[in-house]
């Protein structure tokens, strides 16, 4: 049977940013069903459509542009974007769709984190970064240590009114990268600073196309 892989581009803002990764998949499956679009389902005991997000989206993350790919058992018109935008919940917006003939990989990405915190934040943050810090993560008993500057191309910390904006330019190496939230957490722990996250946003993602 005919099956076309389509690549959907969408943006995610509050409040939809608080939907978990799994729930996003379920949400899109439901919306495809509502729009009467036939997806290709997996075989076997518990058939489900293969909706694949190129990057995982942690709970709370806003993003200007995200991508998922899905196989359809029919051809799609561009008007599907409008139909989607009529039924999507607040915060989600479909941007464009294309037939995926190639494969894409993430090369690097830009983040912005907004936090509410006391005056000295940036000063301490600079100090912390000068030490060539690392991020430690424990998962199922396995500890991984990543040196921040192995992945970080650039960063900037600046105060804007009551909030501090920290921008990161992050490199993806062999599919692995470092999360800005983890950098922040490591810093806050070490300096024993309390801060409140207002927004975490993936502003731009650059892709490499491979065939």
């Amino acid at each position, binding site marked *: 049977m005919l099956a076309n892989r389509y690549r959907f581009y969408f943006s995610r803002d*509050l*409040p*939809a940013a*608080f*939907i*978990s990764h*799994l*729930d996003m998949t*379920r*949400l899109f*499956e*439901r*919306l*495809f*069903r*509502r729009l009467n679009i036939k*997806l290709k*389902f997996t075989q076997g*005991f*518990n*058939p489900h*459509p293969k909706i694949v997000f190129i990057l995982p989206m942690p*709970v*709370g993350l806003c993003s200007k542009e995200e991508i998922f790919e899905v196989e359809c058992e029919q051809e799609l018109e561009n008007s599907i974007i409008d139909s989607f935008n009529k*039924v999507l*919940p*607040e*915060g989600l917006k479909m941007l464009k769709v294309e037939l995926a003939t190639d494969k894409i990989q993430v090369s690097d990405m830009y983040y912005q984190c907004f936090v*509410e915190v006391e005056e000295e934040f940036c000063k301490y943050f600079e100090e912390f970064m000068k030490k060539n810090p690392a991020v430690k993560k424990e998962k199922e008993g396995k500890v991984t240590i990543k040196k921040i500057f192995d992945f970080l191309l650039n960063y900037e910390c600046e105060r804007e009114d009551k909030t501090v904006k920290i921008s990161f330019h992050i490199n993806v190496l062999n599919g692995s990268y470092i999360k800005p939230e983890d950098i922040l957490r490591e810093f806050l722990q070490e300096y024993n600073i309390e801060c*409140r*996250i*207002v927004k*975490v946003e993936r502003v731009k993602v650059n892709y490499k196309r491979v065939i």
Partner: protein
Amino acid sequence: MVVKDKVFKLLYDVEKPGRYIGNEINMIKKDPKKVDVRFAFCFPDVYEIGMSNLGLKILYHLLNEREDVYCERAFMPWIDMQKRMKKEGIKLFSLETFTELDRFDILGFSLSYEMSYTNVLKMLELCGLPLESQKREKGMPIVIAGGPCTYNPEPLWEFVDVFVIGEGEEVILEIIDLFKRYKFSNMTKKEFLFECASIEGCYVPSLYNVEYNKDGIIKSITPVSENVPKKVRKRIVKDLDTSYFPTKMITPLIEVVHDRITLEIFRGCARGCRFCQAGVIYRPVRFRKAEKILQYAKELVENCGCNEITLVSLSTSDYPDIDKLAREILKFAEEKKVNISLPSLRLDSTSLDLLKEVEKVRKPTLTFAPEAGTQRLRDIINKNIKDEDIYSTVKLAFERGFQNIKLYFMLGLPLEEDKDVLGIYTIAKNIREIYKELGFKKKVRITVSTSFFVPKPHTPFQWEAQDSIENMQRKMKLLKENLKRVKDVEYSWHDFYLSKLEAVLSRGDRRLSRVIKGAVALGCQFDDWGEFFDFSKWEKAFVGENIDWKFYSDRKRDFDEVLPWDIIDTGVTKEFLKKECLLAYEAKTTSSCFERCMGCGVASFRGGICVGK
């Protein structure tokens, strides 16, 4: 800053922030300024449980059909969120417009289980409102409550202004009409409550006086004036086909407990198990026409997009031609990759085939609820399942590839002897034996679960004593020791103290309202959640009010005792309940309403299958 912005800032630090964002598919958006009445549907448990409740969805959409009303929703925030809200000075808010609840006109609580009573008070506390009805003046929200627990409303009498008894679809609209007159005139709250009392199905507790005898038993319940009805009769929807059912149903964005479309195929149950409250309060049986169900199913799939549809009722097999209906739904569901599930199906060879065909994606688990271990005890409770039926179905099921069997029983039923407890063991053992005889190699899983009998108001067993904690413990151990000897059997049992508290609260009287308030003050909330339930705190609260909880749970009542819930008329007469109780003592069964009418009294409602009997 508006509440919404404040709330969003908290969400980075709480568990499951998706609970607090609203914004679901088919959520109703209105301009609050353009309505006369703002109604908050309050569910005293977390979002994932509340959003699985069909009653919530029906009433939410029904109320929002009215242009002059905006119905929004509020759930119990989890502890972490409560703490954050308190710190930031945010009161409990609605999910539609993030409006704090004290600014609403009506707060409508859904009372689905007794263990959520403390959460009701907690939610009022989180709104910053006085708990007691008396202390809430005109201008503050009116607090109403509905749901199965209102069939004994007394334990919450001080806190709730008006209880809605029975099915709320019609009553609620009448209350709103009256409320509008109250809001836009100089009618006092007292006058409003008096007028409420004359709406059929409305119980206004403050308009009744209760007197007690020296032994603590109720002497009398009397209305404060002649215009207040002596008894409050439940309301029912006579015809399900013409009654309201939403097909553009609000659909959560995050996974909830029942994450699927629920479609009610009929109301009520004709079987008459003697411990079952639902079987009494939802009488009479009313079927929804197959064409309607089919039409709703299609619309629901189209509007919600869910991948599963479940046909709900108290006893699915009793729906006429359930096979045909399920297969017809399957025809279009299959094409849309939608699954069907059929809970509460009585199991036999035909229903097994149906299950296999319809529930394709489920792990094949068979669920049986024989409730009691011996035929004698099953006759006592009027549960019409024979040992042979269980064994023959299990055999068929094994042959069809089912490998998980779940068995539900109750311990502590009236007249139970150790023989009956051991009967449960015998059933499990025989089932394992059947599997072995069939010569299967693969592993089988037999799960036995027991809960403890809780005597419920308005049932033939409403007068019965509950087993003491010691007795519960002893029986559980007896069963556990024996079941250990059977291969592949797992045993789980329900918490003793939780069942105890449920028994106390479900048959409580007015004096318990102080105890509940005391328990909340001591920190009780989410009592239904094992990690929070603390019976010692409750015991303290009882001591504080000088009340012995055993009075409510462990005491057998006389047939002529005035019961706290005598004020509520379910349509089923007390004589009928008493007759059924006496039949139980003789281990005599009663036939179902389908075979013949037993004259329970509900026929006076002139609805459903009783018509013409």
